[in-house]
């Protein structure tokens, strides 16, 4: 028979081990991608797969020769950041009015917004392509910025709405009685209180924009192409070159991974904002 103390310890060891196992399972594909990017093409195709090999930078050098990585990265950065900012600019007032001036239609509006996310993007590819074409926006950053802003808007509004709902309305009413205008109330009271939640929402939006591939592949070719388009360009035309594909994927993921790593504290705080209030 185990004592209470022993069974608690056993429980914590089991929970700890299984957490690490699940984390390792989730992280493995990323690790494998990074490892493969340092292999030669022959090592990359070897069966059984090789864990120990002679690392090489040849894939990275080749990519650098063949394509202008920084131009793609700049497009990714610019499009993601501007789309995220625009999205926040629209979502904050929307969430403010829905959270603090709730009407009979608020819940329905929120559900309707979310339902738009259920539509497969390919279903609206033709009309959006034709609109972009007639406006001369094919292969332009503006088209991607507008589309990314709109496709992320429902999720961003929902997230901010949830954070705002956790803030007691009394605080905003106190500000109103203290003489704050609506803009001052939002800018000097609401946003500073919700900054954790807002930061994690921005981060999520940034990640979603950065990783978006469907619209970037269909609406851009070179001038406005972001990193996802660069990765795709290494996939099929010349057969599958796993090592090069892994190298370019690593390059595409690296910035957002590093950014996520740096801001993980903020992210966790934001995601658990309601729970720990």
């Amino acid at each position, binding site marked *: 028979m185990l004592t209470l103390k022993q069974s608690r310890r056993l429980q914590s060891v089991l929970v700890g081990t299984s957490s690490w196992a699940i984390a390792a399972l989730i992280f493995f594909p990323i690790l494998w991608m990074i490892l493969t990017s340092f292999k030669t093409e022959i090592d990359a195709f070897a069966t059984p797969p090789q864990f120990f090999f002679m690392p090489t930078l040849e894939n990275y050098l080749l990519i650098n020769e063949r394509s202008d990585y920084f131009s793609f990265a700049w497009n990714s950065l610019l499009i993601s950041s501007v789309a995220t900012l625009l999205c926040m600019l629209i979502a904050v007032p929307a969430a403010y009015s829905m959270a603090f001036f709730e009407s009979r239609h608020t819940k329905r509006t929120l559900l309707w917004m979310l339902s738009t996310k259920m539509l497969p993007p390919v279903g609206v590819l033709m009309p959006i392509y034709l609109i972009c074409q007639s406006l001369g926006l094919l292969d332009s950053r503006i088209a991607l910025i507008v589309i990314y802003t709109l496709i992320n808007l429902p999720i961003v509004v929902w997230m901010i709405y949830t954070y705002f709902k956790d803030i007691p309305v009394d605080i905003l009413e106190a500000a109103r009685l203290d003489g704050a205008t609506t803009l001052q109330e939002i800018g000097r009271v609401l946003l500073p*209180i919700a900054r954790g939640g807002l930061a994690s929402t921005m981060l999520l939006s940034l990640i979603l924009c950065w990783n978006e591939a469907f619209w970037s592949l269909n609406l851009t070719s070179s001038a406005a192409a972001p990193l996802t388009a660069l990765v795709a360009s290494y996939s099929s035309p010349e057969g599958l070159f796993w090592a090069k594909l892994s190298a370019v994927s690593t390059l595409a993921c690296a910035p957002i991974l590093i950014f996520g790593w740096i801001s993980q504290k903020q992210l966790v705080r934001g995601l658990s904002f309601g729970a720990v209030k």
Partner: protein
Amino acid sequence: MADLKIRNLKKGFDGTAIIKGIDLDVRDREFVVFVGPSGCGKSTLLRLIAGLEEVTSGTIELDGKDITDMAPAKRDLAMVFQTYALYPHMTVGKNLSFALDLAGVAKSEVKEKVQNAARILELEPLLERKPKQLSGGQRQRVAIGRAIVRNPKIFLFDEPLSNLDAALRVQTRLELARLHQELQATMIYVTHDQVEAMTLADKVVVLNGGRVEQVGSPMELYHQPANLFVAGFLGTPKMGFLRGQAGKADGAACEVKLECGAQLSLPLAAGGLAAGSPVTLGVRPEHFNIVPAGQGQLRVIADVSERLGSDTYCHVRTASKEMLTIRVRGDFAPRAGETLELAFDPAHCHLFDADGQAIAKRLQQAA
């Protein structure tokens, strides 16, 4: 100066009337308490005065100026919320100065006003702290301080003590009374706690179902309740009620025959009361006396007794199954099931008609 006039004020939410036509005057430097059970509309009324809710109809005037549709910030009122509603990201000092900063008051003046409020409320050592580092009582003082720095025409308090523990509530209640004297300010205070209402108010407004039941000084309301609701609401333990029928009535006395068998003559000017009409007799717990058998007006059976040390509250049942509470000496506690004989002075009785309205003023007070 701060004279508030409310005329025929109504407020409804989605077709449901919450405030059903209220007329009220609050005079300069008065401490007015809105009291009533949950959902009676007292907080809504306060929020209408503050401008946090839109008025459906009626008017609110402050010093002769119509403020019914004015933005909250322009009304020159300050409110202390039940939840304190401090700005969590600002220090105590910033919380106090926020309104003045928004109004563009000069830095030196802001500093002086903040220091002054901090001194009155003993907040000086806490000015650099964030709200989450303060205790409940300290947070409440910051919330009051935030109102003081603005030097408003009227202070509005929305159940400010309900989040404090019992001991702190008593202490803060005293501080509020002292503050009212010191600032000589007009204050409107919402509470469901009748002890707060009785101890703090110059004028109590008893609300029920969105209407004003009675307005008056605490003692006026206690001794001359206008109806059954006010009589039952104010006073702990509550007033005991006995059903009965009116007998002969003239300008000087009124006979009442109670369902539990007793018959008595009350010194009331109940001339308009028809003989045989149903009435309710009200007697406060402290006005009952336990007397030897045969000397009282009412025979009851003891139920539960609550001994508080100084007093004992005996819950008793009459022959007609009405429950009464009587207050007796702390060293006395009847056994459950024991028969007691009660006497009460008819001069301390209240009589209510079938609609629950107090029938007439007692003769001695009318005189």
